[in-house]
């Protein structure tokens, strides 16, 4: 039988899904064990139990100086920046993408400009942002916006252009104005794609967030990781990394579920 025709049964599929996670965990546990037997005070690969203890301590015990549980404050600060950045990107991207996709005038005016802008490496602009917007929240949010907006604009304008010409003509024969065509024909058709684009942008958004926090912040997940790096506190770093991964995964999952629920007619590609 050909390999392409071998399909796993349900239990096997679940087993195969879980397997890589288990393998990575086992590999880590073995590596950590080897190092810790050689040197009990090794800091590079803390034992899984140590990481668990650290995680419990971080999430339940307050900071010695301020009494605040920094873990949750970090999470809240980072999520706020991320949500603000992605939110602004998505709204601007939607409006500009629709304009480029629907209006030939806007296309001539903006499409090439956006294409060129999207080639600028956003991290290279970070120093400028810090200089212009200061070290506060604004520069971090702006970095996320600059980093994700060109992609969202290009993706959405492309999707808008791909809305079948027939539908636009049909809407015109039903007497729709440009505004109504935007609102009732193009917008609903690119909304699933917007969610898709946001999902794809979450990766870069986290990257920019952590980079900005690493350089200048006083709270935030990225800030904390780079802070405790000085003490080689691998248990804290790993806890934060796992937490960030879980957060990112949950966001992605939520967005996908939302898209399925809100746009049942767009079944393919979600």
């Amino acid at each position, binding site marked *: 039988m050909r390999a392409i025709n071998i399909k796993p049964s349900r239990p096997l599929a679940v087993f195969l899904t879980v397997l890589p996670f288990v393998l990575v965990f086992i590999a880590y546990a073995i590596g950590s064990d080897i190092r810790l037997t050689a040197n009990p005070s090794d800091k590079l690969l803390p034992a899984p139990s140590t990481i668990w203890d650290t995680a419990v301590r971080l999430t339940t015990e307050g900071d010695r100086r301020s009494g605040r549980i920094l873990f949750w404050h970090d999470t809240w600060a980072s999520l706020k920046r991320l949500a603000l950045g992605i939110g602004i990107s998505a709204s601007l991207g939607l409006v500009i993408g629709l304009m480029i996709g629907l209006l030939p005038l806007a296309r001539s005016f903006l499409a090439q400009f956006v294409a060129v802008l999207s080639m600028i490496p956003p991290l290279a602009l970070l120093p400028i942002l810090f200089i212009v917007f200061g070290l506060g929240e604004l520069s971090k949010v702006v970095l996320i916006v600059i980093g994700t907006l060109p992609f969202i604009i290009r993706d959405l304008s492309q999707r808008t252009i791909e809305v*079948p010409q*027939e*539908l636009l*003509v*049909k*809407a*015109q*024969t*039903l*007497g*729709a*104005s440009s*505004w*109504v065509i935007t*609102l*009732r*024909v193009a917008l*609903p*058709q690119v909304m699933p794609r917007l969610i898709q684009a946001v999902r794809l942008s979450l990766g870069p958004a986290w990257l920019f967030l952590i980079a900005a926090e690493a350089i200048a912040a006083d709270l935030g997940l990225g800030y904390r990781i780079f802070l405790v790096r000085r003490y080689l506190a691998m248990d804290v770093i790993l806890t934060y990394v796992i937490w960030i991964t879980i957060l990112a995964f949950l966001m992605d999952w939520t967005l996908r579920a939302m898209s399925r629920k809100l*746009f*049942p*007619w*767009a*079944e393919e590609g979600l």
Partner: protein
Amino acid sequence: MSFVTVTDVFQSYGRRPIIEQVNVSVDEGEFISIVGASGCGKSTFLRLLLAQENPTRGEVRIAGAPPAVEPGLDRGVVFQRYSVFPHMTVRENVVAGESLRRPWGRFFGADLKAARTRADETLARCGLDHVADQYPATLSGGMQQRLAIGQALAAKPRILLLDEPFGALDPGTRLAMHDFLRDLRAETGMTVFMVTHDLEEAFKLGDRVLVFDKPRWDPQDPSLNGATITYDFDARDGGIPFQTLKEDTHVLQDNG
């Protein structure tokens, strides 16, 4: 006076002529079938009627109105594919036929209720009342085309343009669609233009069959000449209009 007048229309893309010197006039309520080989400008002619394109020369007038520069409410259209809005349910699609002309593209309150009732009547006539709340993607090809026709008629256009509307359907569904279209036309008396590849379909449904072809053909450069209407058949009475005797001949009449 004729209802649709096409006067001396030329259309070329760049330097390549597609159709040349097309003149035709159509009375209100006529069903015009348009046939021709691929690349002979049938679809271009339909786009000109639709005002999706503007002719390089000549003009198309409907009911004496000035030539349109963009598609509008007076022309309804059904394409081979993508003729209904995939993100609206079947009922919403028909309501959209009336509501898209509004400032916000929708009805509110009592208007919405009335429009839904009218939509349900249209759906019942199209045999789609049992799927009113489904999305078009769940319908078969024939049902989608019936919906597209129902939606176009909900807007009450002056003329209805069909661009190979049954081209993607299987033969059985096609026959059912012919009956559906005939019934609908008998009811509304709509002026219809239909582009088709199927000669049998063209003569079966049409009152007139327009044939697009290139009158001159340059073997060195086939794209040098555009196409025009080379034949204009009277297709009533199964394509044999002269079977209906117009004068009293006193010959072979006394069979009964």
